[in-house]
């Protein structure tokens, strides 16, 4: 029988534990496909976070390490400095990266560490059960903001891509989503570009993926994808925020 589709070899056969409608599965596959297509699976080391993606090291079929909450960019720095010829990535959620790990991500970016960060922004703490994240939208409900996030009480969300784009160290920053097939295709292109820039040694690369959490949002998978398009993306607009290859006319 002819093989018409084959799962990427850059993912293991372990069954994903993610909820239906969660974007992690899609993004894992995009990362894996890109690395396989680039021929870098044997050359890649992933730093995985604390949060829903804590088991990503069981899914990625390459070297990986589980990091302390928010510290993946620091751990990746240590790895990349020892193995500058390897592809080193962090895969982090918004609680991990934009709350407890804000310091580490900002400084890894500022240093221009030659790593790639995949940042999953779904506006909520998933693994711990729906608490408010630094990226929770105003008015969005969370178990620690039951009436909805009130900026007067809970402060305002962080737009991480925009913030990091003000720094000199990053080489490439793009915000993508995976709520439509077209977005998935565009996201894969962005992820590939980030890894390519890392391979060229040009600096820090960062792909933010506006994602979904149907379970903690209390929505069906389809409604969650609608929420991404109707509520999340207007607050977190998609696009390229920094691209030194374009600036240099390459």
């Amino acid at each position, binding site marked *: 029988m002819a093989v018409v589709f084959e799962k990427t070899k850059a993912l293991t056969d372990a069954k994903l534990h993610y909820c239906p409608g969660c974007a992690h599965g899609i993004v894992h596959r995009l990362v894996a496909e890109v690395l396989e297509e680039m021929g870098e699976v044997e050359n890649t080391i992933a730093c995985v976070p604390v949060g829903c993606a804590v088991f990503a090291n069981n899914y990625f079929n390459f*070297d990986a*390490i589980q990091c302390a909450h928010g510290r993946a960019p*620091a*751990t990746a720095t240590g790895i990349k400095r*020892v*193995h500058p010829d390897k592809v080193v990535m962090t895969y982090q959620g918004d609680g991990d990266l934009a709350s407890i790990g804000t310091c580490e991500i900002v400084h890894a970016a500022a240093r221009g560490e030659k790593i790639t960060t995949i940042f999953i922004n779904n506006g909520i703490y998933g693994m711990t059960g729906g608490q408010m994240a630094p990226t929770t939208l105003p008015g969005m409900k969370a178990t620690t903001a039951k009436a909805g996030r009130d900026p007067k009480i809970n402060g305002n969300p962080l737009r991480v891509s925009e913030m990091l784009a003000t720094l000199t160290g990053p080489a490439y920053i793009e915000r993508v989503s995976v709520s439509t097939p077209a977005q998935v295709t565009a996201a894969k292109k962005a992820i590939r570009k980030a890894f390519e820039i890392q391979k060229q040694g040009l600096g820090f690369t960062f792909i933010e993926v506006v994602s979904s959490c149907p379970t903690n949002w209390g929505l069906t998978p389809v409604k969650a994808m609608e929420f991404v398009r109707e509520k999340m993306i207007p607050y977190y607009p998609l696009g390229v925020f920094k691209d030194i290859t374009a600036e240099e006319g390459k």
Partner: protein
Amino acid sequence: MAKVLMKGNEAVGKAAIEAGCRYFFGYPITPQSEVPEYLSSELPKVGGTFVQAESEVAAINMVYGAAAAGARVLTSSSSPGVALKQEGIGYISNASLPAVIINMMRGGPGLGTIQPGQADYNMAVKGGSNGDYHNVVLAPASVQEAVDMVMEAFDIADMYGTPVIVLADGLIGQMMEPVEFNYVRREGIPEKTWALTGKGKGERHNIKNLVIDPDDCEAWNHEHFEVYERILANEEAWEDYLMEDAEYAFVSYGTASRVVRTAIGYLRAEGYKVGMIRPKTLWPFPQKAFDKWNGQVKKYLDVEMSMGQMVPDVAYACNDKNKVVFHGRTGGNVPTVDEVVAFAKEIMGGDK
């Protein structure tokens, strides 16, 4: 190699390089800032890498990464900074990774003082991070010993797959003494077959920290404790100072033990039969030293630059808390010779 006069902070940096360490991740704090300063200029000369991290927290997590990547890696700090590193030390320990952490202790708690202290004994020896684990803790009493112990720390870390803390203090960091560097790598250090290097054509390496199933996590802990049993059996180290006829034994480590050594000179001159057990490893605590001398020692005189953090370990080691008496200074003060002599005389009475 000829002796050179070096400041402790710079000497430990050189010792690390001599022992093959090529990676340092750290953050400035008094009284250890000369360590990062020295390594920032010396590591690049040998093809190494120095990164001034954004915080101690980031630094220790960089150490976690570099250790996982198979490198000999160092970080250093002083008390409040080492407090910040505790999270990462726990992760490194849980992942059975080798790393060396130097603590040039100062008085605390909190921001405390920048003057020398020994009040991080509990933090280093009893844990400091969450969970069931031990650090190997080495306690140098001179610049030369700090050099030797930093070199040895890398070997011990690699031998057992554990963080090793070199617990010195601000005085040892700031003081200059003649040193020589004679690193001889231990036999039997295992290859780092588990290191993250990209899987190449082989099996992938996966360094875990979350062991979510309680039975698995318990088994994981038991594996660590089997390693600790080997460390306990092999790595205890101490110095017996004038113990042969001693009826009273000081127990003191690091800078405090230097003061005690001088005090013993005065006491011996007056005919007191007094010596010192000087732990060189604080974990494992040198139980064998106490087993050896317990029969002849009437009292143990614990002298520290803390409020007595080592006392419970001395009491446990001699199996008689009534035999242990304590004198300490804290908050950045070093005990004086006169003070120690007076304390000992009060305990000994006229018992010569």
